[in-house]
């Protein structure tokens, strides 16, 4: 499986963030894809919830409970996302993996200021697709790391630096339901 669903919303400004889009409960939740280390079946977890993959241990975190989203429960679409950086790694369940999307920075909206609570720590903002609105999870919050401003800037990529197939060898994402994501008004990643 490759990254056939990968699209840029627009490429005019030349910068974007690559997201792994998932479904948790009824919500589309997007994670900056740079820290996605793998996607495995729930059966890959040990009895203590720990996933060991490529020599790295991924401690389980109940992300749906932390996000305060009611998960649909384990199904054939459920996957464990292995997420981490140099400092910390975690695994968490999602109800479905939608696919990868490159979203131009200008199309990423911060959470409106009327949201004043702790959700501002959990969510960096959102982007709008043709048929869905994806909430962007704060990757530092996901990994329970100290929060900082301008988090998404760490994940900005330039299209000019992105070569076709580059990510394909690094991360293979099941393209379940990716048609929906592909229906965004897009042009292919160059």
């Amino acid at each position: 499986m490759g990254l056939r669903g990968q699209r840029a919303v627009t490429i005019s400004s030349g910068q974007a963030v690559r997201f792994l889009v998932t479904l948790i409960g009824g919500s589309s939740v997007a994670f900056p894809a740079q820290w996605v280390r793998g996607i495995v079946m729930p059966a890959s977890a040990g009895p203590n919830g720990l996933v060991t993959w490529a020599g790295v241990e991924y401690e389980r975190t109940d992300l749906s409970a932390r996000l305060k989203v009611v998960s649909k429960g384990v199904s054939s679409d459920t996957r464990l996302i292995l997420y981490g950086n140099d400092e910390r790694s975690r695994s968490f369940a999602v109800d479905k993996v939608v696919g990868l999307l490159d979203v131009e920075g200008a199309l990423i909206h911060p959470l409106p200021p009327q949201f004043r609570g702790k959700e501002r720590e959990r969510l960096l903002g959102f982007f709008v697709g043709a048929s869905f609105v994806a909430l962007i999870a704060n990757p530092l919050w996901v990994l329970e790391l100290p929060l900082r401003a301008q988090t998404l800037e760490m994940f900005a990529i330039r299209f000019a630096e992105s070569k076709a197939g580059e990510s394909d060898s690094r991360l293979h994402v099941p393209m379940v339901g990716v048609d929906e994501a592909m229906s965004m008004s897009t042009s292919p990643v160059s």
Partner: protein
Amino acid sequence: MLRSQLRRHPHTTASGAAHARVQNMVVFSVAGKRLAARTEEIGGVLPWPGTTAVPSDTPLVTSLVRHEESCLPVFDLAAKFNRTVREEESLCLIVKHVDGPLAICIDSQVPSLHVVPRSGVQYQSGLDPDIAGSCVAGDEQLPLINLATLGVASQRQA
């Protein structure tokens, strides 16, 4: 040019004075509760587009609605009055909120415009900072809601 401006000036002043004696109000209902709001606090009325839930700790602000190329936060005014609005039969009231545009789900009955004499508007500070007072629009005495600061003052108090 100057003369014509001078001639127009008294007319404008008279018009302004007339404006000062009345207040334009919009009357709408949320889950059957009738409310009035100042016209200048309203940006428009649209069909209700359906919401995207946001796992939020902010009271009464728990979803987004699509609007043009982006989304607006939704203030659940029905929940504030312990009511439930039927979203499938409703309209979206766009509010010019101090923190940016805000959406409110209102009943499908199209809001009506009223020119209310100033004497028909009673401003009073009660327990609820979102309610500015009351006004008489048509034959009804209605609560006057502060749409532009909805949720701001009440959250400060909490």
